[in-house]
Each structure stands twice: as structure tokens, then as C-alpha cells.
């Protein structure tokens, strides 16, 4: 894996771990970080020997939101940098590997946005989640599109409009994150989370995730067509062929 200005990336076996790494600004997201993450998406997507990518921050903070110093006083702000951020989030959302977010400490704004596009999220008990964008006068990106699908419209309005600071346990109960643990158990919980995702069947992962992401905005008539195309792809994949071979050599279960 390459080295990046704003990320600390490590590859161990089939797992790539990328730490947001701007300690002086509590891992705030700047354009450089968006470019670095986009490049990382390319690299991970192409790597044949990677099954999982883990996104995490530092021990005390996951991410503190957008770095406003990227907006210049002497220039009208334009939308294209934020569009790049959305493109990167979408790449992560449909990446051909398992995606895990592991949160320690505060997870604010853009950091929270990242969680909504990952397959699995764990957090330590003391971590806090917050969309502070509307309170500051702008928008929490395409979380306006994704959040309500996780937690329903009422709760989504409450979180986004009031910038309420959500505690880890509550986020767990709402289904925003999958696992909460004590700080001392964090590494162990993360390893277990990765273990639970494996084995890695890329076709089944991509097909299942795409259907799930579509399920709220597709009619049954369209969805059944999508499902049949996806299932056909899954049952003609190498993985499924091996499964059939194994089953054929076994005695029938009665």
C-alpha cells in the first residue's frame, strides 16, 4: 500500500487498515484526505489479496468533521470539493471488499457520514456521534439520503436538525452501529468483527449489499428482476460451484 499524507495505511494478511491521521486537527477531513481516500479506494479495489478494509481514527478521536480551512476567505466557495467527497463515499459504499469502521472517541460530521456507507461498525462505549452540520449552517452530505433508512425519519430529523450528541449505546440500540465494547476490549472486538464477516465471497457480498442498498427505493417489480440477475450471478460464481462439488461428494443428510 502507498503512503499518504493524511492516512496511515497498514496491510496485514487480507486486511487493510487505514487510520485517519491528522492529529493536530483531530483528524478533520480536508481535500487532501478526500484525494488520499479516493486513491486508497482504487488500490484496495484492485488488490486481489485484500478481503477487508478497516477505517479508524486515533485512540481519542475518530474524526472531528470538515476542516474549514480548505474554504478560502477570498474565494466564493464552490460545490466541487464536496462533490468529490460524495463520490469517495459512494466508492466506499460499493467497494468490492468488506468495509468496517472502528470508532474510538468523537465521531462528528463527515466521520459520522462515513459510518453510514460501511458494512460493519464497532465503537467503544465512550465514543459519541453527532451531525453538527445544520447547527453550523450547512448540510451533512448524503447522510440526508442515507440516515433515515437506518433509523426512520423521526430520529433522523432529530439527529440532523438538533445536532444531538448520540452516545454509543443508543446508536447501538438504533441499529446505527453493530457492536459496542469497553476500550480495553476494542482490538479484540475488532478482530472478532472481521472474523465474523469472513469468508470473503466477493460476488455474494457485492450482490447482497447492492440489493439491500436499493431495497427502499425500488418497486417490487423492478426489484425481482434485479434480484434474479444478482442471484444468477451468485449461483454461477466459482464459490457456488465449489459448494455444489463439496455437497455432491457428501452423503445425503436424512
Amino acid at each position, binding site marked *: 500500500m502507498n503512503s499518504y499524507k493524511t492516512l496511515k495505511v497498514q496491510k496485514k494478511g487480507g486486511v487493510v487498515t487505514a487510520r485517519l491521521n491528522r492529529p493536530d486537527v483531530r483528524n478533520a477531513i480536508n481535500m487532501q484526505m478526500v*484525494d*488520499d481516500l*479516493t*486513491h486508497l479506494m*482504487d488500490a484496495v*479495489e*484492485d488488490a486481489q489479496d485484500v478481503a477487508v478494509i478497516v477505517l479508524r481514527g486515533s485512540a481519542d478521536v475518530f474524526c472531528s468533521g470538515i476542516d474549514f480551512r480548505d474554504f478560502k476567505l477570498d474565494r466564493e466557495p464552490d460545490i466541487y470539493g464536496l462533490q468529490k467527497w460524495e463520490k469517495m463515499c459512494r466508492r466506499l459504499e*460499493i467497494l468490492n471488499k468488506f468495509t468496517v469502521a472502528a470508532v474510538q472517541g468523537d465521531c462528528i460530521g463527515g466521520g459520522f457520514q462515513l459510518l453510514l456507507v460501511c458494512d460493519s461498525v464497532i465503537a467503544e462505549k465512550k465514543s459519541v456521534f453527532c451531525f453538527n452540520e445544520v447547527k453550523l449552517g450547512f448540510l451533512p452530505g448524503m447522510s440526508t439520503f442515507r440516515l433515515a433508512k437506518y433509523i426512520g425519519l423521526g430520529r433522523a430529523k432529530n439527529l440532523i436538525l438538533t445536532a444531538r450528541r448520540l452516545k454509543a449505546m443508543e446508536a447501538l440500540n438504533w441499529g446505527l452501529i453493530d457492536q459496542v465494547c469497553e476500550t480495553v476490549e476494542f482490538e479484540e472486538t475488532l478482530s472478532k468483527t472481521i472474523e465474523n464477516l469472513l469468508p470473503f465471497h466477493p460476488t455474494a457480498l*457485492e*450482490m447482497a449489499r*447492492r440489493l439491500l442498498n436499493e431495497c427502499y427505493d425500488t418497486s417490487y*417489480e423492478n426489484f425481482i*428482476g*434485479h434480484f*434474479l*440477475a*444478482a442471484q*444468477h*450471478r451468485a449461483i*454461477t460464481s466459482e464459490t457456488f460451484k465449489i459448494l455444489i462439488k463439496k455437497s455432491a461428494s457428501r452423503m445425503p443428510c436424512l
Partner: protein
Amino acid sequence: MSANKKVTISGRNTGSRIVSVGTSNPPRKYTQKEVVELYGETNPKIVQFFMNGYNISRCLYLPEPVNGKMPEESNQDLINKHLGGALEIGPLAIEDCLKPIGLSSYDIDFFCVTSSTGFLCPGLSAHLAKKMGFRENVYRADLLGMGCSAGLNGLRNVAALACSNTGKLGLLLCVEICSAAYVYNDKISTAVVNSLFGDGAAAALITQSDTNILKQGPVITDFESHTIPESIDAMKFELEDSKLSFYLDRDIPYVIGANVEKPVKRLLGRHSLKYRNIDHWIVHSGGKKVIDAIEYNIGLTDHDLRHTLSVLRDYGNLSSASFLFSCKELMRENIVKEGDIGVVITMGPGTTIETALLVW
């Protein structure tokens, strides 16, 4: 390597270009409901094929009802309809293509016509030469029986001629009168095609030229084909009541889905391209299930295939002409930037998948 670096393809400025695309359809447009009512169809299974599909309206050459009933069309009627229809919308599509750049049929050096919805001898290109005043030394070729994929087979032939004859003008015409291959006999197999295919013609001007006005449109950079012989019977003409009727096997979406990656990966691979480098996808509007299969096997969205879907919705499956309709929609959208890369995919009997790489 920066994350935002635009991928470039060597030799992108050399090669023939699709300079202009023109289209035409029969004057009468029918909604699916209107067709069902015209034919007085009451079999719920057949009605469902018409109403459940993704296409909503089609332009068709249908006979006028006699005493409130659709008259039976004889074999000769259907052959006449194919020739008559092709000679009406074919020339209109050619004019739509040539007029904006100040050209006429007299300027064309070589001319390829694809049509699979009627068999003629002499072929359509001869009839069009007579009707439209092509030069006496125009080179003609008719491509028959290749069905929906034929547009790209024709494009490949004309592009090759254009490449070896710099400055000369090539024309491709895909003209399909699918309503001349309609048989109404209360069978599900004929209802499948009668509810899907529409009539249309599309023409493309192809040339390799240094003249400014002809130096627009995408460069046709490469092609890749894929034939699946074991599925030779999946799409074919069959005789129904001694008339030609197209037959579509229910496995087609899955055959296409399982194979579509193969030619596309070969095509992209030899230019070191990944799916994510492709800016535009121009895909034949085969039918909703085939489009689903392609989306899920290549990882494309409804947005990527918006023109494929809108052409299917508005015109039905126009066989070999479909992809040029999508191509025209893309050009009309005015979002293509210099350096953009596009992939064209058509599929048809054989079973065949044809692909092409375009660079703007």
C-alpha cells in the same frame, strides 16, 4: 499517481469517428394499452406481457382496423411493409444524420445497411440508392440476419473502411421494421416479441478526416466480439403460420449476464482500463431483464444506462438501431467532455455480444 488523473488511451486521435447520428420512426406511436385494445386481446397472460413490461410506447406500422377488428396481414403484406417502411424511415434517418453537417447521400462513398426484419433481394441498400440519389460508384453492403447486435457489426465494417480510406465518407444505416415480423396467434412466444419490439431507423456518418466539421464525435478506438455457440437457439426466426416470427428464449438474460463481462474485460484490459475509468455506457435496449443482467454483472446503475432505459421505454427494442438511438441521446445531453471514454455493448442472435470502445 494522483487519484484524479484522467486515463488516456494511446492513439485516441487517430481512427475514424462517429461524426453524426440521425434517427427516425414511423409517424404513429402506440401505447402498450392501445395495442392490446386494437387487437382485442383478452388473454390475461398475454395482456400481462404488454402491460408489465418496461417499455411504455412504440412507433409501429400497424394496419388500420377494419370494422373495429385488426385485419390479418399476409406474408406478402409483411414483406411489403418491411420494404415500404424501410424506404420511409430509412431516408429520414439518413437526412437527419447528414443535413446538420451539410452533406447529402451524393457525398457518401460507402454505405452499409443492417436489417433483420425482412429478407429482400436486391437488398435495402440498392432500393435506397435508387430512391435517394447515391452516386453510381457508391460501395454498398447489406448485413442480414444478425439481429440486435448487427449495429456494431455494421459499425465495425464501416469504421474499417473509413480507416483505410482517409477522407472518404462512410454511412451506416440500421433500419428495423419489427412490426413486419409480428404474428398474432395467441401464443405466449409471439406475445413476448410483439410486446417488446418497435420500428425505427438510425444512421451514422463515419469517417476519418482532417476537415474541421468532420473532426467531431467519438473516435472508434477498438472492438471486441464474443460468440456463445451453445446458445445458438436462444434467439432465432421461426415460422409461425408460415410467417417469420422472432423467438426469444427465457434464458437470454442469464446467458448475456453470465457472458457480458468476458468481451468487456478483454476490450478494457488491452487498454489498461478499469470499469471505473468508463464515463459513458451505450447499451442495446434489449429488454428490462437483459438490462438488469448487464447492470448486475458489470456493476452499472440505472443512471449509467439511463439512455438505454429511456429508449426502451419510449420506442421499445429497435433491434440493430437501438444503440444509435442511445448514442444520439447521449450526444444531445451535451455532457460529454474531451477525453471521455465510452463502451458500447450490443447483443443478439448467435448468441453474440459485440462491444466497442469510443474516445471523445
